């Protein structure tokens, strides 16, 4: 018998190595399980894929093979990281399990081992199991690549990055598992609590957005709900997805996401350690060790559950508000009862803490009401003072503001605008354009920005009176951002003057003769013809060059033309010259058309969403001939197609009708558009006048949602100008008049 000397004085450290190693050894089954899972979903799949490439050496180039191997290596990263995250949760729960059993918890805590020792040994054992199970498989995969001669130098880094990311996110997820384990009292709750910690913030975020979706209609909830950027701020699950997916997944720099997770994991470990140190062993077996936390968890769960139930009821009962409120209350009650039962481990406790529930229900209802209706304008004033603001006009134009002063001005304009919207009953928010709004130029606007926490927020205002957003237009036009930004995004600006598009944009100044060399225009087209890369947005220097000389005036002018070039891999392309715009730069257009004639088959296309007050200039007689006319000749030609122009004075209600060719010729150049649509949001118009142009063309074209169908014409009997439009057999016939506006400051004298 040998009695060893007590080592208490010699062991001031946190944990004893023997204890830690012993625990790790006892977890061999976990290591084995992790090994098997990685083997199945990682190693064997790699083996199958890599060996399948063997036969391709005969008919594929080395570059193609390399590309495939490289792509596969990148895709392995996602698998490895996902399995690592799951391993962390599984191993953490397994090794923590003895601390969740009353008998074993008492036994282990009676041993000569500090709590830090128990805590660290769980981490250590989990890590050892992971290393044995996962890292071994990683080495096997390397061997698979090498044995098949596919371990190219280019592949090493993607594989290595998979390992590094896998290990990193194993640690991150383990930290959450440890935190969940430290506060929960049973293994089942431990697993649930881990998921709760990982997802409760996104769940609350989504539930708030769901409430907002129905009430605050100008807030673009859909884009916020689908924003990975937002979720990146809330959970390591989404950061793992972003980091694993690479730069294309996230706007946020990946290194920043990794640093966030380093801090989050460190915080979670520290919190878990603190919670474990304070953990009362006598509470082992109760679902959540800390009673106040138990209540907090309960109320966090029942909020989103109530909203979810509300949404389900809304879906089932035709979006009726009353049913969604009932659903909300049912969700509250059911989740409350369920949580009480689980957290108290007794169905008898289903209705315990009723007073708390009543207070919570009342608070939740008030909060839901505030969120759902945007009461107190709580979302109206959250426009940031500085940061990054993007303004979009429907699908037409957008610009991004980053300068502090610009943002400040835009912010003030938006706040004023929201205030006007709220106080002006004549301008409802979120309504569709109706005939009642005749005379009013309606438009849509959306504003996006990142909140101080990095969550993107987007307001969307549908169909609002254009005059209310003029202050914002002024800010935009006054801002240097508009002219200086490299990434100025006009990719959807089919309304602004000339657009040459190969899924891209370019704008021509109306004074093309002096500012846009024809060669340059042609170069763009030719480039589009031969090179798919030209489909990338052409922003940079060319755009700047085109825009700079005339600055704001450019935006005050009418659109001059529209041409779309589509290319495909096989060298076929279609071009479409849209006469719906007012062509001014005839010479260039002619060149373009010549080019188009020589290379393409013409193709007509219409946007099926825009039917009202829409005229197809395809029906104008001799449309091709128009492009060779001078400006005056062109106006005269157009004027011949116009039966009359009605000018409606919005303020007085007075209507003037002009039918003589001379008057029409005087009025036409002052119009912002000849077809009612396609007015640039940056083109200012006179709000006091509305203009109706009535054409004398009876050559109605019919079209379906699939596009233009030239063979189908309505019967002559249907050509009654008094009829707005016809609908028969899914065929909609457009009317022959349109509403438009005068350019600001360009109201013809004969109208006044």
């Amino acid at each position, binding site marked *: 018998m040998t009695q060893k*000397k*007590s080592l208490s004085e010699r062991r001031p450290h946190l944990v004893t190595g023997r204890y830690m190693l012993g625990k790790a050894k006892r977890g061999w089954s976990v290591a084995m399980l992790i090994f098997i899972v990685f083997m199945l979903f990682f190693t064997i799949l790699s083996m199958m894929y890599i060996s399948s490439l063997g036969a391709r050496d005969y008919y594929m180039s080395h570059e193609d093979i390399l590309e495939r191997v490289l792509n596969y290596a990148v895709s392995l990263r996602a698998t490895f990281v996902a399995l690592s995250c799951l391993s962390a949760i599984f191993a953490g729960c397994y090794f923590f399990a003895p601390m969740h059993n009353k008998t074993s918890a008492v036994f282990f805590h009676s*041993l000569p081992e500090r709590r830090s020792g128990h805590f660290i040994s769980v981490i250590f054992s989990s890590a050892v199991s992971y290393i044995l199970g996962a890292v071994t498989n990683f080495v096997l995969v390397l061997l698979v690549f090498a044995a098949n001669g596919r371990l190219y130098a280019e592949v090493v880094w993607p594989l290595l990055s998979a390992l590094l990311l896998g290990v990193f996110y194993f640690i991150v997820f383990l930290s959450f598992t440890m935190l969940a384990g430290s506060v929960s009292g049973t293994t089942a709750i431990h697993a649930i609590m881990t998921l709760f910690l990982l997802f409760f913030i996104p769940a609350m975020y989504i539930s708030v957005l769901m409430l907002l979706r129905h009430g605050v209609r100008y807030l673009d909830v859909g884009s916020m709900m689908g924003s990975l950027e937002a979720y990146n701020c809330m959970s390591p699950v989404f950061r793992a997805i972003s980091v694993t997916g690479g730069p294309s997944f996230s706007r946020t720099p990946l290194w920043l996401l990794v640093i966030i997770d380093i801090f989050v994991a460190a915080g979670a470990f520290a919190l878990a350690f603190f919670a474990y140190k304070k953990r009362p062993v006598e509470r082992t077996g109760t679902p959540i060790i800390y009673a106040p936390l138990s209540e907090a968890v309960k109320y966090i769960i029942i909020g989103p559950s109530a909203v979810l139930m509300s949404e389900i009821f809304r879906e089932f009962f035709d979006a009726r508000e009353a049913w969604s409120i009932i659903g909300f209350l049912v969700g509250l009650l059911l989740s409350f009862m369920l949580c009480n039962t689980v957290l108290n481990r007794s169905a008898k406790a289903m209705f315990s803490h009723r007073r708390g529930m009543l207070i919570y229900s009342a608070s939740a209802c008030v909060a839901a009401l505030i969120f759902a209706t945007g009461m107190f304008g709580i979302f109206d004033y959250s426009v940031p003072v500085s940061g990054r603001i993007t303004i979009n006009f429907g699908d037409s134009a957008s610009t991004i503001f980053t300068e502090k002063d610009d943002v400040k001005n835009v912010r003030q304009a938006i706040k004023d605008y929201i205030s006007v919207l709220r106080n002006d009953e004549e301008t409802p928010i979120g309504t569709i354009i109706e005939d009642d709004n005749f005379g009013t130029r309606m438009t849509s606007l959306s504003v996006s920005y990142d909140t101080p926490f990095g969550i993107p927020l987007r307001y969307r205002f549908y169909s609002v009176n254009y005059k209310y957003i003029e202050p914002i237009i002024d800010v935009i036009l006054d801002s240097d951002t508009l002219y200086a930004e490299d990434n100025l995004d006009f990719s959807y600006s089919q309304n602004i003057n000339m657009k040459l598009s190969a899924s891209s944009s370019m704008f021509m100044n109306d004074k093309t003769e002096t500012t846009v060399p024809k060669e340059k225009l042609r170069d763009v087209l030719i480039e589009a013809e031969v090179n798919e890369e030209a489909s990338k947005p052409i922003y940079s220097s060319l755009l700047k060059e085109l825009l700079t000389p005339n600055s704001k005036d450019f935006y005050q002018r009418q659109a001059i033309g529209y041409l779309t070039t589509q290319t495909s891999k096989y060298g076929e392309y279609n071009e479409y010259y849209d006469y719906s715009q007012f062509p001014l730069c005839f010479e260039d257009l002619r060149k373009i058309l010549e080019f188009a004639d020589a290379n393409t088959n013409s193709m007509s296309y219409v946007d099926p969403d825009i039917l009202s007050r829409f005229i197809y200039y395809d029906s104008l007689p001799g449309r091709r001939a128009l492009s060779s006319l001078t400006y005056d000749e062109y106006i005269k030609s157009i004027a011949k197609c116009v039966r009359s122009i009605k000018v409606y004075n919005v303020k007085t209600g007075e209507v003037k009708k002009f039918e003589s060719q001379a008057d029409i010729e005087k009025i036409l150049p002052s119009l912002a558009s000849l077809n009612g649509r396609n007015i640039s949001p940056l083109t200012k118009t006179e709000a006091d006048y509305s203009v109706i142009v009535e054409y004398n063309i009876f050559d109605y074209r019919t079209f379906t949602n699939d596009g233009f169908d030239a063979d189908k014409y309505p019967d002559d009997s249907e050509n009654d100008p008094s009829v707005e439009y016809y609908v028969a057999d899914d065929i909609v016939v457009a009317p022959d008049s349109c509403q438009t506006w005068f350019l600001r400051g360009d109201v013809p004298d004969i109208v006044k």
Partner: protein
Amino acid sequence: MIDIKDIKKNFGGVDALRGVSTKVSDGSIFGLIGSNGSGKSTLLRIMCGVFKPDSGSVVYDGEPVYENYGKKQSIVYLSDEQYFLPHSTLSDMRAFYRSTYDTFDDGLYMKMTEMFGLDRERKINTFSKGMQKQSSLLLGLSVRPKYLLCDETFDGIDPVMRQLVRRMIAESVAESGLTAIISTHNLRELEDMTDHICLLHRGEIMIDRELDDMKLTIHKVQAVFELDPTEALSRLDVVSHETHGRLHTIVCRGGEDEITETLSSASPIYCEVIPLTLEEIFISEMEGIGYDAKKIIE
């Protein structure tokens, strides 16, 4: 020496311990008695550093026990619910104890497994409840701890093995100066074993005395009197008095000499002071402080 000072512990609004204070001398066997729910297990778990008291302290030789790695090397706690590593054999548990305690004695372990007749390579979860108790005890004793805390350890062990266990504990006390704290709700388990008795009731200590002291202050007398003993008994602190025919059995407090002298005034034909059982001592003590002892202990 274990110094327990004013320990309080509350579980969810229920006071499990309400200011418990006592001292345990080194090399003694300390009996902790109380009914179910009296706070024995809680006190033991606080004493071995599993629970943290709400207030008060447990100090072993001047050192607090909670989170004290060094001090816990000398303490073995045997819970009323034994825990063994999953699917482990006695040999596995031996390896575990060896890696945990610096003082594990392989020789003693081998000797005791032989004595108890336990198969070292058989999985413990196939053992009977009594065998598991024995396993737990032999592993604990093999550590050669300075302090052994046993919570209802004798429950479920057959009488023969119980005697063996008692003997082994007694030997350890004698040989290596073990201090054993044995909690039970059954007084008979502590008969002829403990040096010190501590009775817990509803989280409070009712009695906390050396057994020898208790025996000196209370006596049981059987006597047959010529005269009516009523007057003599009135001068004694009688705890209980029973008569069977002319035979009087009297339990009363006081010194032996004092009692016999007082009773002599009633001209006893036969008078003998006989030893009290632990149970009798307790009953009398409890009744002395106004409790019905039968309701407190079995």
